[in-house]
């Protein structure tokens, strides 16, 4: 069974309602746009879906905004977080003019095929093992990390969110004086 047939079967078996098309912008942030399942069929993997590339920082100007998201069927995976069944697909970004990969699309740059084609030194596959650290700022129970000069809190309507609205607390050396500065981004 081809990758595309597998995706179509998965859509049926998992009773998928939305297909979320994802790509990565220049800075590395994962971006997404959701399609209702009715708009997806086998031809989607050939033709792709049009979107406005001008709103992605550093990409197209508004007069040449149209771009194509072409889903990679081998990447299909269910989103474990959505209330309604949603399938996630990684996409390559394609120029509508010539059907070639968009020059600034990071996933195309990282395509090992492109790299290996251009470097015939060795027939190679690069394997990467990743170890990452992340900090979870335990704020729900009011515990703030000690020994810090300033703390960044991201809060909205009493809930903790990932939205870019910052409150920066500045502590004086003796920790008696506290100044709050609100920085509103956007």
């Amino acid at each position, binding site marked *: 069974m081809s990758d595309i047939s597998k995706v179509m079967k998965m859509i049926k078996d998992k009773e998928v309602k939305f297909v979320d098309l994802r790509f990565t912008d220049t800075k590395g942030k994962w971006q997404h746009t959701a399609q209702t399942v009715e708009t997806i069929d086998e031809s989607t993997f050939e033709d792709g879906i049009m979107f406005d590339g001008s709103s992605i920082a550093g990409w197209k100007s508004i007069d040449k905004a149209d771009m194509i998201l072409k889903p990679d069927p081998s990447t299909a995976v269910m989103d474990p977080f959505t209330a309604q069944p949603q399938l996630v697909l990684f996409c390559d970004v394609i120029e509508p003019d010539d059907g070639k990969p968009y020059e600034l699309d990071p996933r195309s740059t990282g395509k090992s095929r492109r790299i290996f084609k251009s470097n015939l030194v060795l027939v190679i596959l690069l394997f990467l093992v990743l*170890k990452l650290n992340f*900090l*979870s700022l335990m704020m729900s129970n009011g515990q703030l990390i000690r020994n810090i000069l300033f703390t960044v809190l991201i809060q909205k309507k009493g809930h903790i969110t990932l939205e870019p609205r910052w409150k920066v607390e500045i502590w004086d050396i003796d920790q008696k004086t506290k100044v709050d500065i609100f920085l509103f981004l956007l």
Partner: protein
Amino acid sequence: MGHRPKDKGGYFPVPPVDSATDIRAEMVSTMSEMGLEMEKHHHEVAPSQHELGMKFGPLIKSADDLQKYKYCVHMVAQAYGKTATFMPKPVYNDNGSGMHVHQSVWKGNKSVFAGNGYNGLSDECLYYIGGIIKHAKAINAFSNATTNSYKRLIPGFEAPVLLAYSFRNRSAACRVPYVSSPKAARFEVRFGDASGNPYFTFASMLMAGIDGIKNKIHPGEAMDKDLYALSEEELKGVPTVCGSLREALDSLDKDRDFLKAGNVFTDNLIDSYIALKMDEVLQFEHTPHPVEFKMYYSV
């Protein structure tokens, strides 16, 4: 009274001192659901700092997986009423968060990095490391892509600042881990973090390594001692990573030919990346900083 980690004591007592076992386990199992091959999770040194390890894979899959990884961490943290960040240095004077990238190159089923040289490595592997060290400052523009990245890359805090390679020495920017089989022959780039674009980060490392192999760039002798304990005199000859995003973008601008081999990166891509990131540098440099109020308010 309560069971809390002591200063720098997060690594790694059992619960209830470690209160985040369940949240990490849920992150790992959700990642597995999304097709990642996960290997482990544990608390890290700093308060509220955690590590989740994933298995190796080819370049593009690893970059895709990293996007899923960050998505799962953000989403599960949010579900628990918490929030997680991959900022490399969110807390002053405490350990930063990095991304260690282990690399090996394969020809068919055989690792090109296995050989009879230093710690069971091949000449190709040494040249690859030589390429990484030579181009490290340009790689920094991708692997350490934020102004905040350079608050982690400072001496101390186990941060790998010195561009040297070493067997088992965790203070070197490139570490050659001890392995028991030739298949596992690899080395680890330790200076990167997860704040940038993984596709560019991995591709730039690979291009630097390939440049090293093509031009037989030897990385010199390994430094098998604690690099933090070196004297001023000894330190003089050891190159370092960049000290700021500005320096990294400048280095990328000047050292870009290795990335352009075979049009993998293009001038247009590199120029627009630098322009986009320079905006961040300027915004950061032009904004009055909270710590400036502490230092200068009463001048």
